[in-house]
């Protein structure tokens, strides 16, 4: 007789069949990438994607059918896929491999430069041609699979949280934004290229909801040319790109916190919340991980700011008579903006920053400004000691590919589903900065009802130790919180509520544990 527990860690027979169904769909793709030439590509593509979707949906149905609505985390830590066990590592390695090939060796997927596609990319040609009129690329294949993952696992997620309307609506939202904004609209826009609508210009591929600095390449020379050569529509899109950064994002983040983006709109977040939901418990909650997180993410922000400045700088001219925005005007502008943000925070919000955060902010500010100054007085050539092209290339390789793709998504089963959003995403970092200091959003702790059980912390994909706040009766106001709402959902005592309210008293750093008598509360709150 076994002395240790043997909880149900196996999946049911039907779930195994469902997994096989999905795997069959993947096998078609795999065979195609190994060079099997399917004759009727449209049919085989439909079969493949259909089987994948059906497999996921069937699996989900088997998992949640006949169970009453409620929290469905039974056995999460017993299953090898979700507790860093054998299948978790296998899954992690497989996804990582896929990303490596996708980013660095697309020819193995069948990409042929200047010729007809082969392999799995060719299999997607019919769909791509139907949408944009062009043959598929590795990015089209990736986009199509990405969208299917968000849709199918999105339905699974909604099943799982069917008692929770916040979760359902949020998921419908990311499903919509992925399908429409990230996948279909840019493809359809490509059909306009060269038409009279665009004055004969050609729009760059533009996912409108993908905002700088997540979309770090939005202001590169070739894109700006594309926008400016495409008539009013192109110009409007460029303006929209700028307005998104300076108006829309700060406004919505002030009103609702960064969740409006991270959990309702963003594609990276969308995949993390749907396909990655099973791995949310794997994020590291230690204080050490939090310290690492703050240094990495803020360094990425500095990196992307420098890189973008350098790239824009590189294609601007010096002659004011040709265009009002010259190299030096631009640099002065950037320096002024950063100084203004730095000064405002240091003057008005200094007391809300920890010591090391203050040092970090001062350090980075000095670095950026001195680089700008060095450049300003040293004239042409390199920007910030490096060639802008080198900066851009390194950023795109290190952050854009390795971090967000290979590690961020490939390691879902190892580091949890939001490793990229937490450690790497500069957009999340900037919005987080605002969320912490200037936003109406908070997670309210419900008086003294916390029992320190730890469900909230365990299921926080961003690695926030939610319980540390809740058990003190303190509200959770954290930069990294993406507002997924799962802490509130899994709380067995109804302690946590995501809400927008007045800034006054939002952080609530006084410990208020209701139920105590008033004298005691005063004594406890004395620091």
């Amino acid at each position, binding site marked *: 007789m076994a002395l240790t527990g043997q909880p149900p860690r196996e999946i049911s027979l039907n779930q195994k069949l469902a997994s096989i169904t999905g795997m069959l769909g993947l096998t078609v793709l795999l065979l195609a990438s190994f060079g099997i030439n399917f004759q009727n590509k449209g049919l085989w593509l439909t079969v493949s994607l259909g089987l994948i979707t059906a497999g996921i949906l069937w699996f989900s149905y088997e998992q949640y059918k006949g169970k009453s609505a409620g929290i469905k985390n039974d056995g999460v830590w017993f299953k090898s896929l979700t507790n860093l066990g054998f299948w978790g590592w296998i899954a992690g390695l497989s996804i990582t491999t896929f990303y490596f090939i996708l980013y660095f060796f697309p020819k193995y997927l069948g990409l042929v430069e200047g010729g007809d596609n082969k392999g799995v990319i060719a299999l997607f040609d019919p769909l791509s041609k139907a949408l944009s009129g062009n043959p598929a690329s590795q990015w089209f294949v990736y986009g199509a699979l990405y969208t299917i993952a968000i849709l199918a696992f999105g339905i699974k997620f909604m099943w799982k949280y069917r008692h929770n309307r916040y979760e359902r609506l949020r998921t419908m939202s990311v499903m919509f934004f992925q399908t429409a904004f990230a996948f279909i609209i840019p493809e359809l826009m490509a059909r306009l290229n060269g038409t009279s609508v665009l004055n004969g210009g050609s729009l760059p591929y533009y996912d409108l909801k993908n905002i700088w600095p997540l979309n770090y390449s939005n202001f590169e020379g070739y894109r700006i040319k594309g926008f400016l050569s495409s008539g009013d529509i192109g110009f409007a899109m460029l303006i929209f790109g700028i307005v998104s950064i300076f108006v829309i994002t700060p406004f919505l983040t002030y009103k609702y916190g960064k969740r409006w983006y991270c959990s309702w709109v963003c594609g990276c977040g969308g995949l993390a919340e749907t396909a990655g939901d099973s791995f949310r418990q794997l994020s590291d909650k230690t204080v050490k991980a939090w310290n690492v997180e703050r240094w990495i993410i803020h360094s990425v922000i500095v990196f992307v700011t420098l890189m973008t400045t350098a790239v824009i700088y590189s294609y601007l001219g010096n002659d004011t008579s040709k265009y009002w925005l010259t190299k030096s005007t631009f640099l002065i502008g950037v320096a002024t903006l950063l100084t203004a943000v730095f000064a405002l925070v240091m003057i008005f919000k200094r007391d809300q920053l920890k010591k090391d955060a203050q040092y970090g902010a001062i350090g980075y500010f000095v670095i950026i400004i001195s680089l700008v100054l060095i450049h300003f007085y040293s004239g042409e050539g390199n920007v910030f000691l490096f060639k802008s092209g080198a900066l851009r290339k390194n950023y795109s390789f290190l952050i854009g590919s390795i971090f967000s793709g290979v590690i961020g998504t490939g390691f879902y089963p190892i580091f949890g589903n939001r490793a990229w959003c937490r450690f790497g995403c500069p957009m999340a970092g900037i919005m987080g900065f605002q969320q912490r200091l200037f936003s109406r959003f908070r997670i309210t702790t419900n008086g003294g009802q916390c029992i320190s059980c730890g469900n909230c912390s365990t299921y926080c994909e961003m690695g926030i130790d939610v319980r540390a706040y809740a*058990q003190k009766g303190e509200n959770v106001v954290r930069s990294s919180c993406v507002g997924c709402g799962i802490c509130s959902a899994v709380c067995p005592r109804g302690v946590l509520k995501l809400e927008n309210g007045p800034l006054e008293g939002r952080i609530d750093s006084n410990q208020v544990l209701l139920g105590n008598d008033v004298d005691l509360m005063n004594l406890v709150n004395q620091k």
Partner: protein
Amino acid sequence: MENIVIIGNGIAGISAARHIRKLSDKRIVIVSAETDYFFSRTALMYVYMGHMKFEHIQPYENWFWEKNRIELVRGYVNKVDTANKQLLLDSSRALHYDKLIIATGSKPNKFGWPGQDLHGVQGLYSKQDLDMLEINAPNKEVCKRAVIVGGGLIGIELAEMLRSREIPVTFLVREDSFWNGVLPNGESQLINEHILEHHIDLRLGANLKEIVADEYGRVKSIIVQETGEEIPCDMVGLTAGVSPNIGFLQDSGIELGRGVKVNRFLETNVKDIYAIGDCAEQHEPIGNRRPIEAVWYTGRMMGETVAQTICGNTLEYKPGHWFNSAKFLDIEYQTYGWVFSEKGKKEEEQHFHWRHATEKLCITLAYHKDSNLFLGINTFGIRMRHEVFDRWLTEGRTADYIMEHLADANFDPEFFKHHEKAIIAAYNKETGKSLKPKKKSLKRIFQLT
């Protein structure tokens, strides 16, 4: 430096230690026989269910204790020698104290049932009970049926745990409806139905007569008192309440009743010895509270209070308005103020009960039948804001006022359906009033001026 020794590393003892450290530089030693580190007892169930690993239910990282100079000693206290101010640990070591805090919690009740100590019979309270459950009921093959005796909060949690591994469960409840010594009938009925929805074999009005052994001294079956029915099973969970864990204090000279007798300052009859949490028994009950309150929150409050007293701010234990919460399978329960069951309620306590037509949601509002003064509320499946109800209780609001402002108190996640309109309509119908619900006001909720 004064030497503070705390027996027990549960929420009461740990709260005391944390607050003593905040307020002073005294030496703090915590003795526990149960585990090396503090864990959340209420979360043990989630470890068995696979929602969390044991390490997740430990609220502080392991470095926390050393950093805060809280010494943790693993050992069992056999005896308290009050004359020499020392403890006997593991029958071998002595540990001196200047001040002693007893926070040893509870142990499951056993009422002398025949067979109650057989292999396969257990309670669910400690980490050891959890480990035992992994042996007695690791899966549905080893444990083909489990019987749970006692229809309270731990009983229903144990049922939920076993069901998560698809182990068939028979649930013997002494009362004729689940927990109706505490819950009003409507709510108790709602939970009865929900228990059946989870495929638990609920036996109301059923007592345990005896537990029958097989030839190896293991549980084979149980016999129901009322019907004489024999139910074969491999595991029996005894969850008929808990009582203070104070056996080691017999003959110590510390006054004992059911628990360690304490005054309002949480002091025992022996100088420099205090008792807090589940194991403390008030000489006189405080308000409507019971003299022994085996509740997480009161453990925490007593810990905070006794820390003040020990650090020089002598402070009476004066808990504020009563509140509590629990979860019955999928249904969350919260209570603020006092709502008594039909069995326990006083003559002037009037109830208004609302239940959703299809979903498992209900509330019961208790108020004074003459003055309309709000006494308390129970909610099932609807979350309420603690701060708001606490304020309303302090302000002495009427039931009518609560009804009109119910939206202010709602704590459900955003976009959840609201039921205030339906609730107030039912209240109007029952009382012949024509109150109108007020819109939710952030100004009122957050007390903005």
